[in-house]
């Protein structure tokens, strides 16, 4: 399964701390050599200040029970630095605590004013708060880090050089504390900032690529994320471009999101177009499944791919939670397409195509018919499902075609009217000057 594992690529675009969940997840699966993975984790952890985690990993690796001298020393250093930074920031924090309850908390401007007036607040304080937040984050104390970062965000002006970093830090910390609601807020804020700031093209592309990867974490965990991910990845050209040029592997998550989102079936068409376009740079069972089903109408192929998809999803940290949903929806998609083409299907064949037993399949279809999602009847003697098709009558066609016409014409007329009004207004305005 290692060939479809994206952890390696994804980790390139994630923060070091964000990779730990992924790596730990991989430890649970048996794709890679456990020993090697742990060593890799140790390597990564060593670059942070999370001494306890390091120790833990070492234990798991059975290196030694004792804490090496060097680590002890480092722990001391880390604690000392932390202390020092905390001391620096302490007065401000106290002040904040006091102000928090008062009126001045309402908007950031009054808050900053109050701070400056009453507590002798200086820019250096902000700097140290930022440093502390970063240090805390590096130590793995994300919860505390968020509070300092929150403070920074309020006080900092958006054109501060650290503002972007704070935004990223906040997002990372929120993700790591599994605080999805705030994470989503931060994500939107960060995205707006990136879109509005004037980066050079290449920088913007890079920032967006990172954002895309981080947001996948959020989207698949937030209840609203499934709509948002489609909205952002597929319908925002800037992000779609970033995906196409920098990270086509994101197509997997986009595809999964589209498949499990029943309400957005119309996104499927656009998605398939993109998948086809990028098929030469990226393909995996999930995109291939869609391709089989909607481009080649190869149901046998789709069935096989669906089978593969299950293993892929099972081994992907981001989407493992959607496994059952995916399978169910994929089945439904196969079935729907099938129904659109066929007027009579044998149940046994259908069961075969859906990876189900005939009895199960029959049950499943019965349920579908009962829920009024399928206009069909089962002929149990022959074991057929007969679709209730009605050929489109010409009158209906006619009505369908004319349906939108009057509305469109009205819309057009409205537009023209508005336009002419505007013109009149302008001409009147221009006359005023004479």
């Amino acid at each position, binding site marked *: 399964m290692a060939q479809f594992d994206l952890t390696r690529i994804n980790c390139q675009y994630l923060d070091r701390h964000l990779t730990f969940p992924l790596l730990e997840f991989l430890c649970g699966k048996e794709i890679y050599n456990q020993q090697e993975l742990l060593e890799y984790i140790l390597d990564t952890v060593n670059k942070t200040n999370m001494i306890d985690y390091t120790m833990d990993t070492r234990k798991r690796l059975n290196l030694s029970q004792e804490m090496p001298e060097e680590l002890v020393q480092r722990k001391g250093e880390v604690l000392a630095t932390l202390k020092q930074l905390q001391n620096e920031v302490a007065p401000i924090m106290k002040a904040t605590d006091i102000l928090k309850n008062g009126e001045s908390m309402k908007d950031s401007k009054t808050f900053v004013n109050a701070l400056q007036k009453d507590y002798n607040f200086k820019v250096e304080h902000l700097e140290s708060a930022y440093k502390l937040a970063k240090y805390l984050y590096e130590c793995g104390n994300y919860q505390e880090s968020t509070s300092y970062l929150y403070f920074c965000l309020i006080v900092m002006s958006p054109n501060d050089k650290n503002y972007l970093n704070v935004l990223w830090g906040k997002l990372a910390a929120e993700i790591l504390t599994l605080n999805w609601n705030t994470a989503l807020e931060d994500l939107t804020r960060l995205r707006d900032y990136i879109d509005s700031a004037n980066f050079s093209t290449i920088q913007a592309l890079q920032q967006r690529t990172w954002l895309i990867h981080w947001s996948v974490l959020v989207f698949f965990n937030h209840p609203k994320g499934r709509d948002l991910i489609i909205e952002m990845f597929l319908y925002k*050209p800037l992000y*779609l*471009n970033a995906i*196409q*040029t920098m990270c086509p592997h994101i197509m997997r998550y986009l595809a999964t999101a589209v498949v499990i989102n029943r309400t957005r079936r119309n996104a499927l068409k656009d998605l398939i*177009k*993109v998948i086809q*376009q990028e098929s*030469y*740079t990226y393909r995996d069972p999930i995109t291939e499944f869609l391709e089989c089903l909607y481009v*080649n*109408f*190869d149901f*046998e192929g789709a069935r096989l791919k669906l089978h593969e998809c299950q293993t892929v999803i099972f081994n992907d940290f981001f989407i493992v939670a959607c496994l059952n949903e995916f399978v169910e929806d994929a089945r439904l998609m196969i079935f729907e*397409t099938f129904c*659109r*083409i*066929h*007027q*009579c*299907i*044998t149940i046994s*064949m259908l069961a075969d195509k859906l990876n189900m037993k005939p009895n199960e399949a029959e049950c499943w279809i019965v349920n579908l018919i009962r829920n009024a999602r399928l206009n069909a009847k089962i002929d149990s003697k*022959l074991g*057929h499902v007969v*679709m209730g*098709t009605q*050929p*489109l*009558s*010409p*009158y209906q*066609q*006619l009505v369908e*075609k*004319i349906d*939108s*016409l009057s509305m*469109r*014409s009205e819309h*057009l007329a409205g*537009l*023209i009217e508005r*336009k002419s009004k505007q013109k009149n207004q302008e001409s009147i305005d221009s006359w005023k000057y004479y």
Partner: protein
Amino acid sequence: MSRFFANGSDSESESSEEEVQAQNYNKAANFQFSDDEEEVKRVVRSTKEKRYENLTGIIKTIRNHKKIKDIPNTLSSFEDLTRAYTKALPVISKEENGITPRFYIRCLAELEDFINEVWEDREGRKNLSKNNSKSLGTLRQKVRKYIKDFEDDLARFREAPDQESDVEEGDGEAHDSDADRGGADSDGGVVGAGSGKLPEQPKAAKSAPSKVIADDDDDSDDSIDWDSDTESETESSEDENQYQNMRERFLKRTTEKEDKDDDKRKDKRKEQKHKVRKRAEDDEDGEWETVVKGNVVEKPKMFEKDAEIDIPLVLAKLVEIMSARGKKRTDRRLQIDLLFELRDISEQHALGTPISVKIHFNIISAIFDYNQKISEPMKLEHWALLLEVMQSMLKLLLANPDINMNESVAEEHEEYSTAPYFIRGCPLAAVERLDDEFTKLLKECDPHSNDYVSRLKDEINVVKTIELVVQYFERAGSNNERCRIYLRKIEHLYYKFDPEVLKRKRGEQPAAGSAPSSVEVMDKLCKFIYAKDDTDRIRTRAILAHIYHHAMHDNWFQARDLVLMSHLQDNIDAADPSTRILYNRMMANLGLCAFRQENVKDAHHCLVDLMVTGKPKELLAQGLLPQRQHERSAEQEKIEKQRQMPFHMHINLELLECVYLVSAMLLEIPYIAAHEFDARRRMISKTFYQQLRSSERQSLVGPPESMREHVVAAAKAMRCGNWQACANFIVNKKMNTKVWDLFYESERVREMLVKFIKEESLRTYLFTYSNVYTSISIPSLAQMYDLPLPKVHSIISKMIINEELMASLDDPSETVVMHRSEPSRLQALAMQFVDKVTNLVDVNEKVFDMKQGNFFQRGNMGNRDRGYNRNQNNQGGNWGGQRRRQRGGHHKQQQQQQQQQQTIEEE
């Protein structure tokens, strides 16, 4: 040489000095082309006397013509004369220090007199024939114009048309008659018999003719040489001598000129070529032939005898030589020779590489200067020489990293004596010019001749030279310069096919270890340009070449992405013609690539713009269209000719057209079948339609002959769903040799084609005959079309989903069940009416949008189009951008709008 001293006119001291000089040269192992050497070696006469002989010959004919007042002939002879004189000019300036020979001046003076005389004689002039009077006018003007250059000489001549000339005059007349007779004799076939027997022969010259006729061996040479020497001192008026000379000259003409002239001229040319080549060879070997006899009189001396040759002196000399550059009367060939000489001197005195580089560079520019017309290619011998010098200069530059040759070095900051050296000059400009010259040379040759092939062999050398420059600039050049030279390299690389690439792609050959394939090289160069270039033009050209190269090696996706990402389609109209040509070439190749890679729709899309105009030949700069009603002036034509691609870079037009027509067929035929009764049918390809229609108009259609007829026949077969016949028309022996074998992997392309033909025929069949059946068995369809069952299933499914086919599948019986209900007449009309109304609303909206300049409001415009049509639109939109290219989308939409408007107008 005794002969030399026998002249006696040179002062003793001078000659001795020259001798010393000559010896000096000998020691220096110089190469000097003295006439003597030539003579000793291969019995050739000096250029001088050949030229003079030629001149006198023409002068004599002029005299003859004058006598009978044959003005048109006088005119043509005069033109010959001037031409011959320009030819002789180098010799004259070399050997007589630029003083025009007296006999020439005399001729001019006579001519002038003659013209004036005829002109003044109004009566006579009136009686002249039309032809004559016309020529007279021309002649008069020409002579007047020409004489201006010789005004001084003429004035001097008119002051003292000395005695000698009188004698000669008479002489000349005598000779004339002589000559005439001689001519008559020779006509009568007595050429070889020896004119010595001619009775009228004046005694003084008795021996001469026989000598001449004897053959052009040493003797005659000697005497002639002598004569020419004396000629150079005409002023000293040695009557008898002169007499003899003239006589001899004329006699020689009578005998030799007539029968050997042509041969001789050829010989001469050959010798010259040989000379130059030999010089080049010498150059290479570094061993010069020693000059045996010191005869360097004709050449201006390089340096004083005892001058100490050092850097400043050589530089001064160089400047002196180069200062003559570009002046009207400068002998450019001499200049080149002098520079070579200077180089040797400097080398011999070990003045260091910088000087030598500088002189090399000047030689290069002198060679470039030699050819004054830019539009004409340089001479071959010069070309060979140029390549040599260029390469040796570059090697010098590369071997000495402390030499800095740069445009930006100011003249006064040049440094030759101490490292680091600075030299002013631009090898880049030189190599660019070299490359352009090469293209010109190629264009001059007939592409089907062996000439072209032999010329093309030099391509390797040019590429090598460019490679050297690349190395030089990679060491020391600025980014801009590197971009420029990279572009040159790219332009020699992009159109060449490297089979390695495909082999590697298929894994037949390991990529590691071996030299980088051309695609990799291309990638490297282009990426550098993309990153570093600051002029748009170089980048655009690099991208175009890059796409071309990718397309050539079947890297369809990379090529496509590059096109889409570069936004070239938007602003290519603003580019210069040669870039536009490159763009067209790129598009053509991209289309071919798409076709090979089974993307028929894209292939059609790429090629449609080229083909719809009906003049792909012109658009690809592969030939001019035949002139119609003087559409372009001569000047325009000249410019267009300059833009033409050399033959070896051409794209096969028949292949292009065939690919276009076949892909149009694959798209159009099913479409026609699907929309047979559709009022809003549009055509996909106009060109294809035209072909189809013109064949329909014929009352009798024979078996197909040409490529086009084959495609049309195939299209007709496909319309009935007869894939077998269609495939036979497209893929057969004739078409293979004509078209398909031109592809690298022709077998694969053919298989692909047959596959497509089967599929599209199946679709056409279903469209056409679906209303006849209520159900069709899928297995029998599969059998009919020789396709695997799943494939048929997939095709039919697709048609059902896209609502092209009103049917559904019946799984247990494996049949397609048709649902189509024929609408009644009224219903059909109602549908048509609705269509039109919809169209009207569409157009209204579009008109409004266009005025607003806002196309983005409704993205789902194409949705109301049904079925295949919609697919088409989406594809088009895709191609046109949507992903990375916003404005392209506009463009396509606009096109669509225009099309729709057209259809409405038609309706």
